[in-house]
């Protein structure tokens, strides 16, 4: 052997390769769920991770609270409804202080996240479009017989319901002869101290021919309602056509909406357009599934196609464009300048450069279509594949 080493071996007689080093698995822990289904948006709360998922029994829904480090169960709450309850859409599960709001377009449950107790619940006689929280109130807006849309709010502590205002279908109404659908608002404080709700009336003409030549006319009306004075501050008719139903974002004296192939920056004082950003004329340059995200000086613009744009939130100028993310995303979330979402795999995009950091990572062959939550300090992320819930370490996600 020594002699062989001294004279050297031929290149094709190398010593055998040792086993390659084993890659560190990104999976920290996973919890099997009772059945395949749509998981609600997860939330991190005081060292625990909270989310909901359908239980195996019909019309049963389970809300889980797990230790974020270990995946051990802290509490579990079962919600039983006469019909299916499945708050799967990204913006239908909200965490506010120590309360979790889970909602469908028909009913909502408010839970104490400390112990899982159901504090109160609500079933709407009609159906409503979305849900959001401003201060200590939960807002919803219903639609009745394609004639009216009314904004309500509930005291989050007591469940007391309060009617705010109604927009009706009618030629003399601000939205004219269109069926109104009030979307979720953001709150802006007027310089005189009045509380203003800025929102979209995503109105629809069922019997009208739209600009695309097809029957059904979709238009984006914008409005501001003065809650303090209980009156309409301004109403802008048909700012654009087919728009996103996502809740707008607010930053100081600017409110951002997604219209038809354009992102808008609106002055909440008078509804004036400060700038608009054009995303393109492609067949999927729309915003059906997107939500609006502000990261530092950037407004993130994510249409339904593979592109993601970052624009200067002050001027509307493009900062970067990544044309190869994934289409039809769920809820976008951000942590430490990284934008996270799932669309057939978990994606992470550097908010500063637009570079794809993690490209559709999947820890299993399941369905990676659910929003991502974060641990505030160790960087772990939490999401689902429809059959299990995962804690993953992004360091090892390739």
């Amino acid at each position, binding site marked *: 052997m020594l002699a062989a*080493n001294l004279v050297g071996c031929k290149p094709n007689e190398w010593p055998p390769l040792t086993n390659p080093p084993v890659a560190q698995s990104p999976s920290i822990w996973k919890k099997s769920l009772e059945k395949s289904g749509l998981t609600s948006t997860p939330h991190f709360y005081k060292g625990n991770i909270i989310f909901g998922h359908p239980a195996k029994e019909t019309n049963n829904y389970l809300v889980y609270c797990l230790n974020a480090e270990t995946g051990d169960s802290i509490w579990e709450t079962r919600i039983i409804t006469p019909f299916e309850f499945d708050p*799967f859409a990204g913006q239908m599960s909200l965490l506010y202080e120590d309360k979790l709001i889970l909602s469908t377009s028909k009913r909502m449950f408010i839970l104490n996240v400390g112990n899982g107790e159901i504090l109160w619940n609500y079933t709407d006689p009609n*159906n409503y479009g979305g849900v959001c929280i401003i201060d200590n109130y939960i807002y919803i807006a219903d639609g009745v017989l394609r004639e009216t849309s009314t904004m309500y709010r509930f005291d989050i502590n007591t469940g007391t319901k309060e009617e705010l205002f109604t927009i009706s279908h009618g030629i003399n109404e601000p939205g004219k002869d269109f069926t109104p659908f009030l979307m979720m608002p953001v709150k802006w404080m007027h310089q005189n101290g009045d509380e203003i709700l800025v929102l979209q009336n995503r109105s629809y003409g069922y019997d009208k021919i739209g600009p695309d030549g097809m029957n059904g006319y979709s238009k984006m009306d914008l409005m501001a309602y003065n809650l303090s004075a209980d009156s309409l501050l301004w109403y802008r008719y048909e700012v654009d056509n087919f728009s996103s139903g996502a809740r707008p974002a607010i930053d100081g004296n600017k409110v951002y909406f997604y219209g038809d192939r354009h992102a808008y920056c609106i002055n909440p004082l008078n509804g004036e357009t400060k700038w608009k950003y054009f995303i393109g004329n492609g067949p999927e340059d729309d915003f059906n599934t997107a939500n609006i995200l502000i990261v530092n000086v950037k407004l993130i613009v994510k249409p339904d196609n593979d592109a993601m744009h970052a624009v200067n939130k002050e001027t509307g100028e493009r900062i970067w464009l990544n044309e190869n993310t994934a289409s039809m995303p769920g809820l976008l979330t951000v942590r430490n300048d990284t934008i996270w979402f799932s669309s057939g795999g978990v994606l992470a995009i550097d908010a500063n450069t637009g570079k794809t950091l993690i490209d559709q990572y999947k820890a299993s062959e399941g369905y990676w279509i659910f929003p991502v939550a974060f641990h505030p300090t160790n960087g772990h992320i939490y999401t689902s594949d429809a059959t299990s819930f995962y804690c993953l370490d992004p360091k090892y996600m390739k």
Partner: protein
Amino acid sequence: MNTQILKKHIKFLLTFLTFSLSFTSFGQPPLCDTCHYDVEVKYNPKIHETITKFKKADTAEYTPCGTGVLIKKNISFIHGLGGSANSWAKQAVWTEQNYQSAVTNVNYDAKLQTSFHYICDELIEEQIEDGSDDVTDDYPNRCKLNDFAIAHSQGGIAARYLDWQWDDNQNGNFGTREFYGLVTFGTPHAGADIAITKTQHNAFIGQIASSIFLEKPYGIVYDFTSSPVGAFLGLSGADVIDKIDDAIVNTLAPLSTGSLHTPTLDEMKPNSPTMDSINNHHSRLRKVAFYGIEEEPECWRVISGITDTASEDYPIWGATRDDHFQGKMEKARAAHEGEVFYLQWDLRGLFPLGNKRKEKESELKHRKDAVSFLNNANSQWRYLIGAYHKDSMETKSINKYTVKWDEKYGWLGKWYSQERAFYSYDEAQSHYNMIPHSVYKWRNGSINTTQETRQVQKYFPNDGVVLERSQRAYPGVGGRVDKLEGDNHFQERNSPEAERVMKRLYLGGPFGYYDPFFATPEL
């Protein structure tokens, strides 16, 4: 081999054949520049022109119910080729139980040797009409203008055929319109390329079958040289394997593909008179198209869904990916490779002689062919479904990562320069990291990136049966589409992705998904 085992083999084979093409699907491994393709499909650019066709309705889409009227919908579910009432049964019940709607679950025999005209006129239309009338009996004042249909695969073409006939009722056979909107899952709106390759299906299925047949089903080695299989099939002699293969391809495979090769499949060829007619009809239906995109190996994934557990056998929205068949085929390939090694060893010398030698040579050839087929099966499947066209190549720049280093093998040994090229940075990095563990000494390690221009086969994404662009090519669909990520043709009716899009469909207007026309409030 005793007769029982033989019968078991034949039963397995027939079961496999029956299922594997009771709906068309195939396929497997990675794209490679040197692969050879046994399937000849003539590339027809017109097919792709058709797919981009976009026609707006002359008189706009149908006006849905307005305001202040009773909207009690009837939603009709229409299955595809090879399906039955079971295909949509759970989804229909789920819809009725949770949303303000009545449902009609259509059932027709898609295997009948018949035509779209027949199945639409005699079977589907009548059932939808009856379903709608039942709802109207219960709600006489209801507005029907919001009734719509949800269809899978061929069911979408049947629904469009009905739409065309209702508008253009030349012979008066068709009654009055029963739905005003259509939602399709995996429907080949621009035609099904797989319908062009009918004649290759038997050969392909035959190759899969013979690859398994001469392997080790049920863990028992099938010794074909001494078994009665030759007598069973009326064969004898040293070329028994070739004859068995012939018998599988020409006799057994057509038994299974026959039920699939109906006139409706011919009618679904791109640019067929039927497809041209419905694509040239200026439809006024409200539309949404859902399309599945499956990952490779599409072939085995689709066959898994057919041979193991059908989509409808899973709980509601529970049809997840099944890799069982892929595992089975990988095992078969490994077993063939092992046998090839031993056969080559056996044949290295002068013995055996005569017929025994011929049989071993024949077996060796067969097993080598099986390995080659299994290595290229997914590529061939892609040809059959139109995901590859032989004449459709594209030039691509790809990164090449060259790992370079010097190494020596002993204290007094000299330094050798080494290099190895990779087309994946991860693989290059992994190799680089391994060098210190594999040589006595090394130095000057580097990874250099260069670009290479290559002619590669253009790949068209698909759900394992239908191309993505055909699934989406519904005139007027515009942006009203959604991708079912990772779903194959069968899963896409009953997967978590299907659940997501169905719920979004019913959410309709307020949330902004698809078209408010389809909004169906929760109960």
